[in-house]
């Protein structure tokens, strides 16, 4: 809570004026503007940098409002009369008096919704301070997945004035019988970290929840709190009901920007590597920077990078500095310990992933080190804001590129920060899987009329463009699965009654809904337990945390990998547990979980393409990178900003094709799958490919340079946009990434139940794997709404088809081909990735054949 030292306290009633004055504070401009919005009864979006007193600004109008309308004091049991009644023996009267005393004195006024339950808990603590100091009669409570059932039940019958909670809890409350009574009095909903919420399916679920809340509490006002974003209007639409025609916007308040951050790229004497993501070369520099500051957050992009960096830091930790690790796979108790130690000031550095991205003040962080590419300018700005929560002092940050391409990316990000450029992703139409879940939730809460619900749903901005036919199909899906073969009428989950309204068919449906609410579909996780090496049948063991099942499933017993800061060796897997032992090895055999999770933003990509093309900018990136780009110009060519460079060259008995779209790994992977299909058809005999954030390399047996020279292969045809037609469809048939997307959609939509307590060990006859369901559905009803939902997701998610389409159209007619005699400088990094990166190819059949071959060779050996 940051307040300027200024005297004026206009517009504030007592005791608020006094409270500010007593501290020599004055409300900031944006805080007053939020008060004005309440006077106008308008919904409002506040955009403010970290440290601007955003949270107090969001709550202040509600605190004043509740205080002003507190008509009578909180109902307390009238002690004397009750005691007299008891003494008189009139039990009935006594019970009536007790009941009257317990009747809720407060009604729910404000909901605060945060993407993190820890943030809700933290805000509640912070809010208690001014409330206590001003002596306000206002009750604040939290409600998260950790809240006990007795308290949850009580919160429905006797709600606090302000309830701090998460989107999933809103969905649950809406689906409860008490929803109408509970939310009838609701005046304000405060949405924190809105920029982070709206780009996810949780944001879709919350948008639908808000639409429901508006129906339950007419006149409801929303207050959105957000970091700076590229398109504030999208968030303003999100906050208010959208009319059938045109659009509506919430008011906008923009806080004054804080001090410009002080960001540098690590100056190092070491050689920056050509490729890879370890940043091992810079570890001594990072350690030195940690030593020079009080508390450093070391941000990395993935869990495996976090593990690696943590381990490397401890290997050079000569001064035994307290350095901790924080990421999503670690046991929650361990994470809480790290957070507490940060707050207590007993740590010097924490290596972390996005788990520490959002809002909580864990301590006096005075430096952020960002290891690896920033991926997006806005993301970087938010992470840097974690250093120094004081608005008027600059945050300090150091970027550590882990390879030479990342040097360019870091440079582009620093330039973007200087200009205040934003590249947050655009908002997408709401998911149909989330819609299905919401429809079921509505039926669980109270019977609904389909026409009313359609109007309500389309008032939520993400669903404003939803047509009635699609809505009806979603409704049909919820009821009977929505299959053309109407086999399940008798097993319907919701049914239309004589009054025309839809209700749940039986209580079990409601129970299942409650157990499966939410849009976060976790990867299937296994518990990691540490046992002694050499045990034949491992049991028990210390719990180290959880790890993705798909990662472990690619390991053989004896394989080593990094987890929890140790090199571990796989002993075995049993049911939901993985047994590991400590390995003396220093380098793990299996290198990484996966590459960066966030693709390079299109904005930064464009800037990097600019830098490659413009010799004037080369020396800004240091002698190593400048030399590299100069060599590229000499041996091949540096493509202009809007060109796509394609190089072909032979190397070690193979022929390579390398192109440089700079559009992120996901997009390049999809391109790689489609190109290899086409090359196969064109007779170029491709064998594999590897994608990086910047480039794609395909290799094979055919002499591509010769084929192009003889006009037997046309690059224009190869990169034609029509690859997004039949080739894409054919590939989707067998794409494991697509199947994973389907699994997520099917789970959110309620087709597949998540595991829940007491049902962990369902026999295999009770469940069907989502892959099998996918195969059957795709061949028998390819237009089913869940496949439609999956395709929509694939466009933006794991397959990034939308970005691939944009890339193909951008470079149409602008392909520059270079036939080379050997690998070019620009191609070297991606070629070095071969064998190091997890190859997400789809050539499973070939791999099977290879393994079968092993056996043939074994059999043929003399």
């Amino acid at each position, binding site marked *: 809570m940051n307040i300027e030292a200024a005297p004026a306290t206009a517009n504030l009633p007592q005791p608020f004026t006094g409270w500010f004055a007593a501290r020599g504070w004055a409300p900031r401009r944006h805080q007053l503007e939020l008060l004005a919005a309440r006077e106008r009864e308008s919904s409002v979006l506040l955009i403010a940098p970290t440290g601007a007193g955003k949270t107090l600004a969001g709550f202040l109008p509600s605190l004043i409002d509740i205080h002003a309308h507190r008509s009578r004091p909180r109902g307390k049991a009238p002690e004397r009369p009750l005691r007299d009644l008891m003494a008189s023996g009139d039990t009935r009267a006594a019970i009536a008096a007790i009941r009257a005393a317990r009747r809720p004195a407060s009604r729910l006024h404000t909901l605060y919704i945060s993407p993190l339950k820890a943030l809700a808990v933290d805000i509640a603590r912070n809010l208690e301070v001014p409330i206590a100091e001003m002596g306000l009669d206002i009750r604040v409570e939290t409600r998260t997945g950790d809240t006990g059932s007795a308290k949850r039940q009580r919160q429905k019958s006797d709600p606090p004035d302000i309830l701090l909670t998460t989107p999933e809890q809103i969905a649950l409350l809406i689906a409860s019988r008490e929803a109408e009574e509970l939310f009838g009095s609701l005046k304000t909903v405060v949405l924190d970290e809105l920029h982070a919420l709206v780009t996810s399916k949780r944001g879709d679920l919350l948008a639908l929840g808000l639409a429901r809340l508006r129906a339950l509490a007419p006149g409801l006002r929303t207050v959105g709190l957000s970091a700076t974003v590229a398109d504030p209007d999208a968030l303003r639409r999100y906050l208010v009901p959208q009319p059938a025609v045109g659009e509506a916007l919430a008011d906008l308040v923009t806080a004054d920007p804080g001090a410009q951050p002080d960001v540098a790229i690590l100056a190092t004497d070491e050689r920056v590597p050509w490729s890879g993501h370890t940043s091992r070369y810079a570890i001594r520099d990072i350690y030195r920077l940690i030593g020079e500051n009080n508390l450093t957050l070391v941000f990395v992009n993935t869990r495996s990078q976090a593990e690696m960096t943590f381990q490397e830091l401890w290997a050079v930790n000569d001064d035994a500095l307290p350095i901790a690790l924080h990421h999503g796979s670690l046991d929650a108790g361990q994470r809480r310990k790290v957070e507490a130690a940060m707050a207590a000031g007993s740590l010097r550095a924490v290596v972390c992933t996005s788990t520490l991205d959002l809002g909580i003040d864990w301590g006096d962080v005075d430096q952020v080190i960002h290891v690896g590419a920033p991926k997006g300018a806005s993301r970087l700005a938010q992470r840097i804001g974690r250093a120094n929560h004081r608005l008027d002092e600059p945050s300090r940050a150091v970027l550590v590129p882990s390879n030479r391409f990342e040097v360019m990316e870091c440079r582009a990000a620093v330039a973007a920060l200087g200009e205040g450029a934003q590249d947050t992703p655009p908002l997408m139409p709401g998911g149909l899987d989330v819609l299905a879940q919401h429809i079921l939730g509505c039926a669980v809460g109270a019977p609904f009329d389909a026409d009313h619900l359609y109007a309500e749903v389309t008032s939520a901005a993400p669903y404003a463009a939803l047509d009635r036919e699609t809505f009806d199909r979603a409704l049909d899906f919820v009821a*009977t*699965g929505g*299959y053309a*073969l109407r*086999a*399940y009428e008798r*097993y319907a*989950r919701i049914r239309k009654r004589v009054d025309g309204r839809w209700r749940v068919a039986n209580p*079990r*449906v409601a129970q*299942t809904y409650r157990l499966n609410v939410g849009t976060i579909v976790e990867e299937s996780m296994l518990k990691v337990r540490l046992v002694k090496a050499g045990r034949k049948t491992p049991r028990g063991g210390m719990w180290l945390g959880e790890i993705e099942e*798909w990662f472990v*499933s*690619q*390991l*053989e*017993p004896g394989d080593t990998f990094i987890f929890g800061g140790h090199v571990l060796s796989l002993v075995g897997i049993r049911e939901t547990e993985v047994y590991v032992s400590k390995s003396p090895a220093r380098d793990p055999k*299996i290198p990484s979980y996966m590459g960066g999770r966030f693709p390079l933003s299109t904005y930064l990509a464009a800037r990097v393409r600019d830098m490659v093309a413009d010799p004037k900018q080369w020396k800004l990136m240091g002698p190593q990178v400048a030399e590299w780009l100069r060599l590229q110009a000499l041996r091949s060519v540096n493509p202009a900003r809007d060109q796509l460079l394609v190089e072909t060259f032979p190397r070690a*008995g193979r022929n390579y094709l390398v192109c440089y779209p700079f559009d992120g790994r996901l997009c390049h992977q999809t391109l790689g799958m489609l190109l290899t299909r086409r090359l*196969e058809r064109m007779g170029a*005999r491709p*064998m594999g490919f590897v994608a990086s954030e910047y480039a794609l390399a395909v290799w094979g*047996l055919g002499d591509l340079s010769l084929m192009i020279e003889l006009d037997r292969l046309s690059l224009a045809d190869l990169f034609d946009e029509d690859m997004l037609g039949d080739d894409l469809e054919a590939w989707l048939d067998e794409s494991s990434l697509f199947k994973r997307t389907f699994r997520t959609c099917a789970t959110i939509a309620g*087709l*597949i*139940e998540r595991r829940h307590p007491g049902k962990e060990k369902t026999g*295999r*006859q*009770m*469940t*069907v*794997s989502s892959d*099998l*369901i996918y*195969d*059957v*559905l795709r*061949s*028998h*009803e390819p237009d*089913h709404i869940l496949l439609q939902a999956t395709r929509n997701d694939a466009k933006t998610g794991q397959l990034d088809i939308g970005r691939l389409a944009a890339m193909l159209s951008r470079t149409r007619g602008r392909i520059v081909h270079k036939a080379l005699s050997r690998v070019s400088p620009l191609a070297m990094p991606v070629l070095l990735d071969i064998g190091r990166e*997890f*190859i997400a*190819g789809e*050539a*499973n*059949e*070939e*791999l*099977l*054949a*290879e*393994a*079968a*071959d*092993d*056996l*043939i060779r*074994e059999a043929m050996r003399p």
Partner: protein
Amino acid sequence: MNPTLAQVEEMSAQSVTGMLDLCGEALQVDPSGALWWPDERLLVVADLHLEKGVSLAARGALIPPYDTAATLTRLAEAVMRLRPARVIALGDSFHDERVSAALPEILRQQLRALMRATEWVWIAGNHDPAPPSDIGGDFAAELAFGPLLFRHEPQPGRTQGEIAGHLHPAASMTVRGRSLRRRCAACDGARMILPAFGAYAGGLNLREEAFRGLFDPRRLKAYMLGARTVYRVAGRRVGYRG
């Protein structure tokens, strides 16, 4: 250098990696997951789990109702191609006892059409211990045929010539950092367990406890089902330790 998919399929069409010997009989694992005994013109399929979709829908999971049609179509394809004189369904042919009676007419006709051309034996399974109602075919708890014995559940201990289902074997292995998992037939020359044929029947990894002691780990081969061919892989390679 790795051969391409097309090359592999071409090669394996000649080498027929699905061929195997069980008690002196030449058998062949079909890419569909069925077992073909050419000398007897006998086709064996295990764990069809017909109407599993409907059976689960009754319990609240409205998964697509096309599994029976999908399974029967695949079975019909194998029957048309191989023209067997007899078919043995190795048990768990119907996902639960009631569904054979409630089988929709169109599916019943489809099944009967298949059965008309051949002798047909239903082996009892734990899901369908009694003969299916109003479908026809013979019914047996287990069936000996020459040196081979057909039953649903593999019996623990030594055996000579047992062919069973029930366990839905699947095999997984890592090739160049990639994990591959397929349904498979498993055979060590004395016993054979067939993969589940049903569209909604999942797989159980050969490494699991349930397979322990059933095979000689030195002689076990997994016949992993590819798109058009079968890949033979050593049991050790897919993690079977005995």
